[in-house]
């Protein structure tokens, strides 16, 4: 009931304020959603499905793709981009969904939040019995919500790592080569599961 009220409130206030939640609230909403699924008694398959839905709401796949492709974003045709984005989303999803089975408790601590214009950096830590890992979120404001476009784990940026590899593949094999490699990878991952 309370959730409903909150939702209703958010819905009503959305047009009034350009941004309804701070970056931290936004990330917390996603993290809480994911943890709720992780800590539930659902079967692994169902967990993955639910988490996928939760996370996708907060990811800016276009921003993510743009930063990953870098120089090649502008060079690519609309058709190539339309092929790239869903593939990339699937690969990213596979990467974090495969971690679902590893989860064995832990919590997220929120640290410093820095906002400037339509960009924000949020520092968090993932703390569990075995780990204490700094995780930094980079967000960009799009259409009234903060969307995550990069995650830095112990200073290693997800997007930058992907960009570095993808750009090298693009340079050597072109866009078709990259798309083929991505398709093959996905087929390979899905076969293992």
């Amino acid at each position, binding site marked *: 009931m309370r959730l409903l009220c909150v939702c209703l409130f958010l819905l009503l206030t959305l047009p009034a304020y350009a941004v309804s939640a701070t970056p931290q609230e936004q990330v917390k909403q996603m993290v809480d959603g994911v943890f709720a699924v992780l800590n539930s008694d659902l079967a692994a398959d169902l967990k993955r499905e639910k988490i996928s839905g939760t996370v996708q709401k907060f990811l800016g796949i276009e921003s993510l793709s743009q930063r990953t492709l870098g*120089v090649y974003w502008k060079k690519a045709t609309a058709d190539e981009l339309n092929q790239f984005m869903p593939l990339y989303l699937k690969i990213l999803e596979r990467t974090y969904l495969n971690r679902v089975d590893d989860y064995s408790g832990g919590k997220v601590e929120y640290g410093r939040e820095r906002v400037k214009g339509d960009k924000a*950096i949020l520092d968090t830590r993932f703390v569990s019995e075995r780990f204490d890992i700094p995780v930094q979120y980079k967000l960009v404001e799009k259409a009234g919500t903060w969307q995550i476009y990069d995650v830095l784990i112990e200073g290693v940026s997800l997007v930058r790592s992907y960009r*570095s590899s993808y*750009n090298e593949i693009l340079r050597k094999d072109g866009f078709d080569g990259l798309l083929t490699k991505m398709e093959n990878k996905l087929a390979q991952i899905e076969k293992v599961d």
Partner: protein
Amino acid sequence: MRLAIFFLFLLISLLPVGLAFAQPSEGVTSVDQEFDDDFDQEFADDFLEEDDTPLISDPLEALNRRIFWFNDKLYVYLLKPVARVYRVVPRPARKSVGNFFANLSSPVRIFNSAFQLKFGDAGRESSRFFVNSLIGLGGLIDVADHYGKIPEKDEDFGQTLGFYHVGQGPYLILPFLGPSSLRDAGGLVVDMSLDPFTNYLTRNMSLLEKAELKAARAVNYLSLDDDSYEKIKRDALDPYLFMRAAYAQYRVAKVAQ
């Protein structure tokens, strides 16, 4: 007996030092709407579409890829299977072995913190060493982290060089040891000489025995790891490229700490 009293005294006198450092070194949880000068810099290259500069130069890629292949086989067919069998040893025991080795190499971290004029870190690492050696059964238990909330802070000579603005130089994959760079590989050599306790303990060992000890340490480490290498291999389009990018960024982040 007198020795015991001496140690007890040392311990008591050192405890406040450890506790004084136990306060978290960074203030967190405050929502800071202001930002530093480095804020823009942290965003800078995300929005530069022209940025195509590699994170680290790799003129020896062909050779590196061969060594990468060799390390991969070594890992998949030798080290990992051994580590998997070794996992029958309960986790806390394996953790203790890791702690023991880490504690022995405390001087490396103390020296390198001092080289970088991070005297607070040098002090924390020193108190960690004393507390863990004395109360933590010769380093088997990381008392300083568990009870004193003083976690280990990794410092090595590669980071010290980075602190003084020495660039990473070309990317190198070292046989057996994995990703490195010209700078960090050089740092490794210096760190070995800064490791008096390990050097002392292994002084009578043959080269082969030393290698075996290193392998044992690696196996112990791998037994505690959650198959992170396997995951990179499964998820990345080109694991070599992904690991290179991750290594370059990881080291930059380490130097900045």
